[in-house]
């Protein structure tokens, strides 16, 4: 890397699929949008891990508890990986984790749509509390696949260090999604009542794909930070969920 040549504007380069590689070569607006994407991921994982950690002791057996603990540990490791990249832009990474109570939740009956609560960027779905182990498995079942769909898109992000992180994280999330399917199968065999949880979580997970703002998406696309419409991602997720839910004898909400 050297400060040589200037044959092409950075926006042309990005519009043609170019990659940026270090904090030193990102322009200001790109920096801000990139940090927002990273903060959303980090906050969602910190909040998700904090929420699921409370469920470990509710898991039925040692295996399930171990799997839940492992999922929590890996979500924290994933958050750490992306927070480290934020640190390279100047973020104080220790303080970032400490400055906020990640385990707080709203009332189960709260209805906040896609809005974020005031002081963090977690996806809205991570603001709702679980009612039981089965409820948390259903949420993980739905959200696990949603995260995979979202990461499959984000691994093409034009900031190469983040694209590489997301590629590795996707493999871990695919495993988490598979564990959730396994957990749900066990519960289904025990004839647990899962449908109310599906009805509760499905619309809330669907909202995590974002509400369409075409102008904003175009802006992010031009920077190579996004590539696919929110609605297309959401229908991809619905398509994938349908057979999984059907196998478990559940209906889509």
């Amino acid at each position, binding site marked *: *890397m*050297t*400060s*040589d*040549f*200037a*044959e*092409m504007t*950075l926006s*042309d*380069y990005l519009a*043609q*699929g*170019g*990659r*940026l*590689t*270090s904090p*030193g*070569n*990102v*322009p*200001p*607006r790109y*920096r*801000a*949008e990139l*940090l*927002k994407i990273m*903060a*959303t991921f980090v*906050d969602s994982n910190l909040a998700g891990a904090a929420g699921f950690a409370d469920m470990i002791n509710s898991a039925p057996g040692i295996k399930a508890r171990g799997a839940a603990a492992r999922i929590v540990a890996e979500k924290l490791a994933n958050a750490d990986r992306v927070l480290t990249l*934020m*640190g*390279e*832009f*100047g*973020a*104080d990474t220790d*303080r*970032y984790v400490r*400055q*906020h109570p990640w385990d707080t939740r709203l009332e189960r009956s709260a209805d906040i749509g896609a809005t974020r609560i*005031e*002081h*963090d*960027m977690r996806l809205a779905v991570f603001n709702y509390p679980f009612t039981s182990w089965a409820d948390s498995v259903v949420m993980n079942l739905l959200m696990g696949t949603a995260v995979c769909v979202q990461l499959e898109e984000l691994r*093409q992000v034009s900031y*190469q*260090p983040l*694209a*590489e992180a997301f*590629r590795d994280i996707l493999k871990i999330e695919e495993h988490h999604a598979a564990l959730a399917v396994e957990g749900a199968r066990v519960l289904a065999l025990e004839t647990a009542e899962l449908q109310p949880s599906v009805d509760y979580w499905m619309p809330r997970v669907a909202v995590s794909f974002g509400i369409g703002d075409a102008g*904003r998406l175009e*802006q992010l696309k031009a920077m190579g930070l996004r590539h696919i419409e929110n609605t297309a991602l959401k229908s991809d997720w619905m398509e994938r969920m349908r057979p999984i839910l059907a196998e478990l004898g559940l209906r889509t909400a």
Partner: protein
Amino acid sequence: MARFHELEVTDIHKTIRDAVVVTLKPSEPEAFAFTQGQYLTFRRDFDGEELRRSYSICAGTDEGKLQVGIKRVDGGAFSTFANEELKVGDTLEAMPPMGRFFTELEPDAGKNYLGFAGGSGITPVLSILKTTLAREPRSTFTLVYANKGVASIMFREELEDLKNTYMGRLSVIHILETDAQEIDLFTGLVTEEKVGQLFRSGFLDTDATDTAFICGPEPMMLGIAAGLKAAGMAEDQIKFELFASAQPGRLAKRVISKEAGKTANEAQIVVTLDGATRTVAASKQLSVLDAARAENLDAPYACKAGVCSTCRCRVLEGEVEMVTNHALEDYEVEKGYVLSCQSFPVTDKVVVDYDQ
């Protein structure tokens, strides 16, 4: 947060007419252990303004030395200084090595690597190929190296020596923009088409390639990446290092507004975001970020605690008080950057820009 360390210049020599290779001895050597392909960020004061520039390390990790290559750029203050004034015994300041332009090495692996370098983009690629050939005795490396002409090829002799040292494991294809060569294919620019021709004519082989490294100017990186993908390589087999650094424009120092300092409780905040400028009137009790968002401006933020730096903007006129700052460095603050979530208007008029 990374900090700057002092390094002494122990050797400096020209590799071509307008590029120097600088050998450095860090005052704290353990902070400067590096991985092949990483870069150093230097800082230096020019006419009262701090400039930061990054240059890739060109030494291999087993050479026992820290060396960077700096090519002079027209109008580039740091590169001109390095080429014309820097001498042995001088002290430079740099942050510890950074960057991810490398793959893990495995001593038992027998891999085939492809490197593409344009001009001074050779520096990190040279570090990678030297380290790889030394650490992975069964691996091969093919370098496609683009330059204007023979006279502008950095490290030409060193590459010849390496070919002899690693007989049969290192091949170098020079592509020259203006100088004619025996093989027509080796003249011109390295474009997507050229990459395709190199594959079809057998000079390169994607099937056998494990990883490709590309460092050069933007159009070249795009062309090569497209060529490699067309030849069947996957995204995760291609590593990029972008050449240019976004140069924050040198703007006039911020102006303190003449009618500043009055004691009104309300401030006029002029906000530029995505190329559009709007004026919002807001209480001085409201942060610049909240004032902008209250008027439906989509100003960026994440943590709202002065920790993450997402909401950074530049104050061009007037004065704000930044109550918390855990993210911006002193030099950024000196240039007028603030965390808008933590900044409250002091003067009656404040002009901020999120686009700088």
